[in-house]
């Protein structure tokens, strides 16, 4: 995965058409033989113009992804948010032990007594418990597991 851009683009990097593309294509994309033509038509662009703009938006880092969003659990995987309370002097050593597991998809330092939060992703539900136990054995710390009990519909859209 490319490095995630964590700073803002200057406002002049995007024109009105770019903003319309970013706002509109967050909602969906057609499953038709010429989807860029069809999506472009609603934006006043040809399919070729839309493709060129999407390529540029990707190059400047305005887009992280374009394509199907899969429900990873529907694909048969298991996921679990986990947290550790790591003594500050040990933080980097523990982070290295945790990150060494391929099952750790991402890991964030956070400002709290539970100061390390990571997501385990495994092909099977049993893999979550197994990996959590390994991390506990290696670090001597309790891995607190916060599996999702319920996910709510997300209305989030970034307005470009």
């Amino acid at each position, binding site marked *: 995965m490319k490095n995630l851009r964590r700073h803002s683009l200057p406002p002049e990097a995007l024109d009105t058409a770019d903003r319309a593309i*970013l706002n509109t294509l967050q909602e969906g994309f057609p499953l038709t033989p010429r989807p860029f033509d069809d999506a472009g038509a609603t934006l006043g662009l040809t399919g070729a113009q839309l*493709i060129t703009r999407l390529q540029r938006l990707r190059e400047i880092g305005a887009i992280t992804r374009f394509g199907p969003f*899969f429900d990873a659990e529907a694909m048969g995987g298991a996921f679990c948010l986990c947290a550790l309370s790591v003594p500050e002097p040990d933080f980097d050593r523990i982070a290295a032990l945790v*990150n060494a597991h391929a099952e750790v998809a991402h890991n*964030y330092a956070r400002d709290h007594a539970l100061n390390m939060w990571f997501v385990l992703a495994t092909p099977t539900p049993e893999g979550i418990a197994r990996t959590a136990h390994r991390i506990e054995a290696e670090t001597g710390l309790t891995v607190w597991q916060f599996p999702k009990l*319920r996910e709510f519909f997300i209305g989030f859209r970034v307005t470009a």
Partner: protein
Amino acid sequence: MTRLDDTDRRLIAATQAGLPLVQAPYACIAADLGLTEAQVIDRLSQLQARGVIRRIALAPNHYALGMTANGMSVWDVEDKVAGTLGEMIGALDFVSHCYLRPRAPVWRYNLFAMLHGKNRTEVENKRTRIRALLGPACLADDILYSTRILKKTGLRLRDGQER
């Protein structure tokens, strides 16, 4: 659990990095997989109808678009109303993820909502709005800002068996 067949899995593997930016992307994928364009469109439509594909769309980089402050807000909400309140909070346009999760001996919060804004003041204002929406059913809350990304890899469907 939704059963996926071999063709579904090959289609997922071929598209999880994204759609090709060409005039006929589904025909392009079909050619790689030895399928017809109609088969690819039909399969993707079925996967979408079954919820395996949530949507086909663009993901904007919210940092690039100025949303640089991000906090994990957490709420201790009465269990009997947590589902109803979670639905209300998840539907807010500034909440990107919203989940009900179990409590733990060291952790009293059951409702998690990721908040985004141009700065922390904006995020805190959104947190205040949520607090008002939850009302007395919320007994306590906190927000955890990320101080460092320690690791970030894409979630991928893995081939083969677990080691």
